């Protein structure tokens, strides 16, 4: 059977984005060791639930699964350790480029300010910064596209799906009421 070809793929789904099967990617060993350490901590924690009290105890499945995690993570770490490092790749270029770091920071900042500032201002800032950073187009284009995208998203999810996002500093309820009155008025 034909195997899934990562080169024919854009990164969607489970395909490995780049890398060679028999070579170690930059940072892969550190990640494998991190998983091994985290699995060991989880196993210890699972043992703490009920110890070896009974096979039907609430800790039985957690202990079994975390034990499997420790064993498999150790196997992966050992295999990764034995593989030669792929010298054609670098951590900064292929695994964690500046763009990804910038977006990770942007996302965390978004999460931190969502409740205090509210959905609309935080999303507007996020979209404008992100679209400008990625597109490198004029300010007019960036502002137009970002605000239009935000307006459509807000209308669909706030009005159609009735999703309540944190209002923060924006009088969102009044805005929705005004919008509804406008349409009701139009209908009359």
């Amino acid at each position, binding site marked *: *059977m*034909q195997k*899934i070809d990562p080169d*024919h*793929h*854009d*990164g*969607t*789904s*489970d395909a*490995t*984005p780049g*890398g060679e*099967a028999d070579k170690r*990617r930059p940072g892969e060993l550190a*990640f*494998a060791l991190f*998983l091994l350490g985290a699995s060991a901590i*989880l196993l210890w*924690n*699972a043992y703490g*639930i009920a110890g070896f009290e*009974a*096979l*039907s105890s*609430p*800790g039985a*499945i*957690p202990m079994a*699964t*975390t034990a*499997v*995690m420790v064993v*498999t993570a150790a*196997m992966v770490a050992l295999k990764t350790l034995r593989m030669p490092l792929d010298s054609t790749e670098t951590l900064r270029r292929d*695994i964690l*480029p500046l*763009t*990804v770091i910038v*977006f*990770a920071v942007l*996302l*965390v900042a978004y*999460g931190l300010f*969502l*409740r205090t500032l509210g*959905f609309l201002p935080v999303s507007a800032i*996020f*979209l404008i910064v*992100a*679209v400008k950073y*990625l*597109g490198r*187009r004029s300010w007019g284009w960036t502002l137009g596209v970002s605000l239009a995208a935000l307006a459509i*998203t807000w209308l669909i999810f706030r009005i159609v*799906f009735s*999703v*309540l*996002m*944190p209002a923060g500093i924006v009088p969102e309820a009044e805005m929705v009421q005004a919008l509804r009155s406008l349409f009701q008025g139009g209908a009359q």
Partner: protein
Amino acid sequence: MTALMDFLTVLTQPQLLLLVGLGTFAGVYVGAIPGLSVTMAVSILISFTFSWDVHPAIALMIGIYMGGVYGGSRTAILLNIPGAPSAIATALDGYPMAQRGEAGTAIGVTTVMSFIGGFIGIGVLALAAPFVSDFALKFQPRDYMLLAILGILLVGSLSQGSLVKGIFAGALGIAIGAVGRDPLTFAERFTFDLRLMEGGISFIAVMIGMFGVSEALLQLHHVDKDAVRQKITRIVPSLATVKKHLPLSLQTSSIGVVIGALPGTGGDIAALMAYDHAKRVTKNPEVPFGKGAMEGLVAPETANNAAVGGAFIPMMTLGIPGDAVTAIMIGALFIHGLNPGPMLMIDQPDMFWFIVGCLVAANFFMLLFGLTGIRLFTKIVEMPRSVLIPLIMLLSIVGAFAVNNSISDVYWMLGFGIFGYFMRHYGYPLGPVILGVILSRLLDDNWRRAIISEREDLGRFFEGVVTSPLSLVLFVAVILVFVSQTPVWRWGKSKLFKES
């Protein structure tokens, strides 16, 4: 008669029909736009539709699922970028056809073949599910446990190739699913004495993070890639073309249904196996495979759409998802108070026939949208990634927050998104994680029921496995899947083939 009425519910209620149509339309584009996946779309959508009634929510999600499986083929043909993993095989011959100026023909053939495959899959679902469900009533708790393990193992072994990483991912999913207070004893599990962990981790946050944010972060590597434009001519294929490929489409549809029905295998595996089958049975293709052979389009497209109906069989009758998307669909059903499994067919057969009706409607909409609106389509798929990626991130955040109006779900989602990004880079499959999270409860409950019924005696448990034919088959299947991925098996296989 009642079944027929339930089946026709979606066709007789304009609102539901509209939602299926809307979902299919959106699904075609979601599946087609590189960077958006059906799994991502359905997982984000669950959070927005959870306050809806069950019927409209399911109608919309089924439309997206059906349209998305088909939509992936569009960009595979036009841009050589499969919009979904199930369209990877389609690109092998579809893109060469487009380069020869036959993009319209290729799109037309894939649409009609997807329609045929889709119908065969739905037909098998409608006929087989009631029998499988009756049979599933005989399942003991240990059988469910074994089936859950089999599903996770299959996803782990087939989607990526590294069984060890697949098993790790599945176990991680089960552990994530166990976080919080145990529903039976109220004991704390993996809470680290933090109150916010006591309620567990929302599986929707995990799903959106792993499939939405990690995907968007990965797409940042491809921001500068330019889209290739193709000229599109005639789309509707001739009757002679359809007739000529009908025998192959029936064969590959069967492959699709069977592969789709196996727990843990979905449209991507079905499509690749069907492509492989077509290569073997087509002795003299007009154009060689890989250079634009029509058979190379027919096979994967019928198979991946037939796999949709197939994947619903274990999902509806056993509560075991066929692949990552059906795992998410199970989550959606849970959220709407339904409990997929053999009892669903007894307690709520109306829901089963309603879903079959939605699938049929979605299949017709797929044909309609597949053969029309190609100009709009080319405009939409050319949407710059600099806008698309931030939008996916925004939708992921809104989706994660919307479920419980909880900011901590957003943090979980972001955490799993970043974690999933690294997992993908280092070749850990994400499918088993989601399957593990969804199946964690089923596995835990059934293990405890099974071992309590055997009076906590492991010897008696294994005696039960060996003496029950069904448990034995499942147990052997689990062992076989495991052993088949080990070097010992590969060594034995190569030895055997050398000798013969």
